[in-house]
C-alpha cells in the first residue's frame, strides 16, 4: 500500500499500552490542535495547533538558567514563574537548558515514518492482544492529510486502526479518512445545540451530520459521552444522546466516560484557567443510573472506555 512517508504532522504524545481506547493493547497518537474547546478537556495542551511551553513547577530547581537562555526575555521569575506568550517565539532554548524537565515543549513536527517507527515497537503486543493504533487529539481530522497518510501506513503494516474524534470536520475530510479506519470512537457531548456551543465553542449540527455519514460507511462506531456534572448528566440528556446513537447505523455501544479532574494540573502548566474548578466528580451510583437509562433504550452501555 502506498502512503506518503514524509507527510508531516504536529504530534504531542504517543502513548503506549493504552487499554481504554479501542480493543486490546494499543498505542495512541495524539495530534495537536482542536476546533472545540470543551471546558472539561483533560488534554488542554491538545487544543492549540502550535507548539507550547508547559511549566511543571514542582520539577523546577530554581537554577535560573532558562531566563538566561531566553533570547526574547519572555521568561521571568519575578516573583514567580511567568511566560509572556506574546514575546515567546517557541525556540525551545529554555527547554534545552532545563535539565530537570520543569520546562517542556508540547508538540513536535513528526513525519509519518517517524511515528510509524515508534508504533512498530509494540507490534507484537498488538498482535497478541488484538490491539492496534488509535489516533486521538486534539482532533485528528484537524490534520487530515497527516492523519490519512498515517492511517494508511498503519493499514500497510496490517494493524487495526481507530480514531477518537469529535466529529467536527468537513464531510469531505471525513470521507477521505474513513476507508482506512476500522473503528470510530465518536464523542457526542450534547444534543442541545445551544448548550453544545456554550460548553465546547462549536454547534453540534456538523457533528451529528457527520455521524450519519460515518454510519453510511458501515464502520463500527462507539459513541462516547463524557459525563460532566450539570452539563449533560441528567437522565433525559443522556437518553437523548442514546436515541440519536440508535438512529445511526454501525453504532453498537455507548460508553459513558465519567468526568475526572486528571487534566487539571495541566491547565496550571499552561498558565490557563480551569473553568470547572471545584466541581466534584460523580459517585458510582449516579453513573450506574445513567448506564441503566441508556440500556433501557436498548443500547449496550459501558462505563469507561
Amino acid at each position, binding site marked *: 500500500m502506498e502512503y506518503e512517508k514524509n507527510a508531516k504532522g504536529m504530534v504531542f504524545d504517543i*502513548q*503506549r*499500552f*493504552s*487499554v*481504554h*481506547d479501542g*480493543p*486490546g*493493547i494499543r498505542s*495512541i497518537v*495524539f495530534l495537536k490542535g482542536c476546533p472545540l474547546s470543551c471546558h472539561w478537556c*483533560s*488534554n488542554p495542551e491538545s487544543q492549540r495547533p502550535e507548539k507550547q511551553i508547559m511549566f511543571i*513547577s*514542582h520539577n*523546577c*530547581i*530554581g*537554577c*535560573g*538558567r532558562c*531566563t538566561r537562555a531566553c533570547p526574547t526575555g519572555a521568561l*521571568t*521569575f*519575578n*516573583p*514567580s*514563574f511567568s511566560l509572556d506568550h506574546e514575546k515567546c517565539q517557541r525556540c525551545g532554548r529554555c527547554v534545552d537548558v532545563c*535539565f*530537570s*524537565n520543569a520546562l517542556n515543549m508540547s508538540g513536535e513536527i513528526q513525519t509519518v515514518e517517524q511515528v510509524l517507527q515508534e508504533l512498530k*515497537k*509494540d507490534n*507484537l*503486543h498488538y498482535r*497478541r*492482544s*488484538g*490491539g492496534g493504533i488509535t489516533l*486521538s487529539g486534539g482532533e485528528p481530522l484537524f490534520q487530515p492529510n497527516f492523519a490519512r497518510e498515517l492511517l494508511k501506513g498503519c493499514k500497510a503494516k496490517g494493524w487495526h486502526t481507530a480514531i*477518537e474524534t469529535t466529529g467536527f470536520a468537513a464531510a469531505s475530510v471525513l470521507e477521505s479518512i474513513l476507508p482506512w479506519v476500522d473503528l470510530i470512537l465518536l464523542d457526542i457531548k450534547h444534543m442541545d445545540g445551544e448548550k453544545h456551543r456554550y460548553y465546547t465553542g462549536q454547534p453540534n449540527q456538523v457533528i451529528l451530520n457527520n455521524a450519519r455519514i460515518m454510519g453510511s460507511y458501515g464502520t463500527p462506531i462507539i459513541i462516547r459521552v463524557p459525563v460532566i456534572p450539570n452539563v449533560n448528566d441528567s437522565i433525559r440528556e443522556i437518553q437523548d444522546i442514546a436515541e440519536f446513537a440508535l438512529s445511526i447505523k454501525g453504532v453498537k455501544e455507548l460508553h459513558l*466516560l*465519567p468526568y*475526572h*479532574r*486528571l*487534566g*487539571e*494540573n495541566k491547565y496550571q502548566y499552561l498558565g490557563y484557567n480551569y473553568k470547572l474548578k471545584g466541581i466534584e*466528580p460523580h*459517585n*458510582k451510583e449516579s*453513573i450506574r443510573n445513567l448506564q441503566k437509562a441508556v440500556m433501557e433504550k436498548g443500547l449496550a452501555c459501558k*462505563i*469507561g*472506555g
Partner: protein
Amino acid sequence: MNLTELLKIPEEKGDNCKMPAEFSQLSNSLPTQRIQKLIDDLYSVTPEIEAERAILLTESYKQTESYPTIIRRAMALDNILSKMTIVIRDNELIVGNLTTKPRASQIFPEFSNKWIVDEFDTLAKRTGDVFLISEDTKQSLREVFKYWDGKTTNELATELMFPETKAAMEAGVFTVGNYYFNGVGHISVDYAKVLAKGFNGIIAEAEEAIAKADKSEPDYIKKHQFLTAVIIAAKAAIKYAKRFAELARKLAAQTSDAQRQTELLQIAQNCEWVPANPARTFYEALQSFWFVQAIIQIESNGHSISPMRFDQYMYPYYKKDISEGRITQEQAQELLDCLWVKFNDVNKVRDEASTKAFGGYPMFQNLIVGGQTVDGVDATNELSFMCLEATAHTKLPQPSISIRVWNKTPDELMLKAAEVTRLGLGMPAYYNDEVIIPSLVHRGLSLADARDYGIIGCVEPQKGGKTEGWHDAAFFNTAKVLEITINNGMANGKQLGPKTGEFTSFTSFEQFMDAYREQMKYFVSLLVNADNCVDIAHGERAPLPFLSSMVDDCIAKGKSLQEGGAHYNFTGPQGVGIANVADSLMAIKKLVFEEKKVTLAELKEALDTNFGSCEAPKSGAKVNLNLNNLTQEALVEAITKLVLEANKASLEDLQKSANIKVDLGSNGDKEYLRQMLENRAPKFGNDIDEVDELAREVALIYCREVEKYTNPRGGRFQPGLYPVSANVPMGAVTGATPDGRKAGEPLADGVSPVSGRDKKGPTAAVNSVAKIDHHIASNGTLFNQKFHPSALAGQTGLENLSALVRGYFDQKGMHVQFNVVSRETLIDAQKNPDKYKNLVVRVAGYSAHFTSLDKSIQDDIIKRTEHSL
C-alpha cells in the same frame, strides 16, 4: 509470595489477611467455613519463639560427641521428632506441626546464634514481624547456645575465608549472608517418590545400597555412615507420623462432636499409613506430602523448600479418587485449601534489620502449575486450576504460587492466573518455558529433566528431586564495582581492587568499559571464594540426611547433598543493580564522551560529594557496619540513616527556592548536573536500543564471569539476576552513581528498570527487559510490573494482562509478576510518596505518576479505583 513485593506493599502482606470485597466476584467458588476458621485461628496469636527444637538438638549432640557428623545429625533429628510437642489444631484435616503455637519459630543454633541473644529483648517490641519470647525460653536458649560456641557453620565459614574476600564483603561488594547464617534450603525433593514408595521404600532402598556396596572400597565407610543416617532419619519421620495417629485417636475419644470424631479417626488412619507406606488416596497423598514438607523444615531452617510441580505429582491420586467416586471436587478443594493454610503455619525468626526488608514472614515455598510434561506435551490439568483457586480462597502469602507458560498453555489457565493476579497478592508469578528449558539444557540437564523444571524460592529454576542448586548463594553489587572502577580500585579509602586507571585519565568510553570488566572479573573471583567457604562449612558441620534421602543421587552415591550427593549441583549468585550500571554507563558515554557536556573531573567531583549534598567523600565510608558479620538483610538498618543524610542538605533548600530566580552556587551546579545525568541521557526501560543494549552488556559481563567457576560439590556456578530485597541494602552502601542516583538510594530491582525511570508504560518496559539475555541467567531473572486495577478491569483487562505476558515471553523474557495496586495502596502512596515513585495511573487518554499529582486529584483517583473494580 515474592519478597520484593512484600517490600513494596507491606500493608497488603501483613498479618491480617482479610478477604477483600471484590473477591467473590473474581473467584469461581467460595471457601468453606472451615477454611476461614483455620485462617482466623492461625492469625489469632502473635508468633512466639520456641526453644524445644534447640534443646532437643543440643541434648542429642551432647550424647553423640564421638559419632560421625552425619549420624549425629540423624540422631538429633530422631530425638527432636520423638520428643517434640505435637498438636492437632482445631478444624485441621491435614496435620503436622513444626511448633506448638501457630506460626511460631524454632531456633537453629547450629548455623548461627549470637544475634538471637543480642535481640532477645527487642523481638517483641519491634514494629514488624514481632515474635514474643518468654523469660524461660530466653534462659533455655542461653544455656543451649553455650554448647554451640565455636561449633556453628557460620564460624567455620568465617575461618575459611581469605582476608581480601572479607574486605570486599565489608565494603558491600557482595554478601553471602543467607547461607552464612542459616540453613541452605532452596530445594525441592522428589515428593512423587515418597508418595509412591513411602519412607519404608526409601529405607529399603538405603538398605539395598548398603548390601550392594563393596566393603573393601575406601569410600565404603563414609557411604555406610550416610546410608545409616538416612535410615535413622526416615524411621524418625515414620515415628513422628505415628505419634499423630495416636494423638488423633486420643482426641477422637475425647470429643463429643460426632463429625469431628469421624475426621479425627480419619486423620489417625492417614497418619498410621503415611508417610511410611505408599499413599492410596488423594487425602493420604496430601498428608504424606505435608509430613515431608514439615520435617524438612524441622531438620534445617533453610527457607524456600519448594513443592514445585504439585499439580503434576498429585494428579494421579486426585484423578483416581474422582473416577472411583471416592471424593468430590469440592471435597478435594477443601483439602487443598486446608493444606494452603498449613503452608502459612511455617515461620522463621529473622533479625530485626531483616524484617524491615522481609516484612510479613515470608517462607518462599514455591508451588508451580502448568507447563509441559517430560515428553513436551501440555501438562495443565484440573489441579492446576484448583491450586490457583486455593490461593484465591485463602488469599495468604504461602505457598508462593507460580505458573509455567509456554506456547501451548491454554488461554483458560492464563485467564484464571490473571484473575488471581488481579486480587493484588502479587501472585502468581509467570515463568517462560521457552527460555528456561533451553537454558537448563545449556547447563547440562537432560531435555526430559529440563522440561520437568519447577521454581525454587523467588525465581530460581531447577529440576526438583535431583538438584542441590544453592540458588540463593550471594548477592553481588554490580553498581558498587562501578563505584570502585571510578575510584581506580579504591573503596572506603582502601585499595580493594586492581588499579585500572584514574577516572579522569580515560580518553574513550571503551577504555572505561575495559576497566569495569577487569574489576568485575576480580571481584567475582572473590565472591566465588566466599561461597565455596560457606559451602564447605555446611558440608562439614551440617549435612542433612533426611533431606538428602529424597534427592537423587544421594542414596546411589552414598553421599549427602551438602557433600555433593545430588545429581545436579549448582551455585547461583545474583547480580544486582544492572539497570543502574547501564544507566550510568549511558550517561558517561553520551554526556561525557559524545556530547562533552560534562568532563570526567566534574563528574567525579559531583559523585564524590554526592552531588553537593555532603562534604564527606563517600557514603560508603559513613556506614559503620561490619559487613563480614552481616546478612544481606542486616544492612537495611543503615539505610534510613544513609538516605536521610544523603538527601538532607539539598532537596529541601532547593525546593524552597524553586520559584525564585537565584543561582544556587556550586552545590546548585551539582544538583543541576545530577538533573542532567538523570534526564538528558536515555534510561533503561523505555525501549531505547542504545541503553537497553548496555544493560544487556552489563548483565553479560557479570553472567559470563560467574559461569566460569566450579563449586566444592562438583558442580558449576550459574548466574541469576534477581535481588530478593538486596537492592535496598546494597544501595545503602553504594555511593552516588553517574545515572544521577544519590548515595544510599536503593538500586534497581532484578532486571527491572530503575524505579520511576520507565516512563513509557508496561509494553516499553517489557520490551526493554526482554533485550537482556535471559538464557544465560539460568539461576533466574526477576521482573516486577505494577498495575493500577483500572488497567485490568473486566474480562478485557484479564485478556490484556495475559497478552502482555505472552508478548514478553514471545521476546524471550524469563519471569514476570505483577503488583496490582489497590485503593489501600494508593492511600498509602499518598502518605508515603517516596515508596511509590513508580506508580503510574492511567485513565483514558491521560496518564500520570500518581505521586506527582495534587492531593485532591489523588483523592479522585482513589475514588475511581472503586469504580474500576
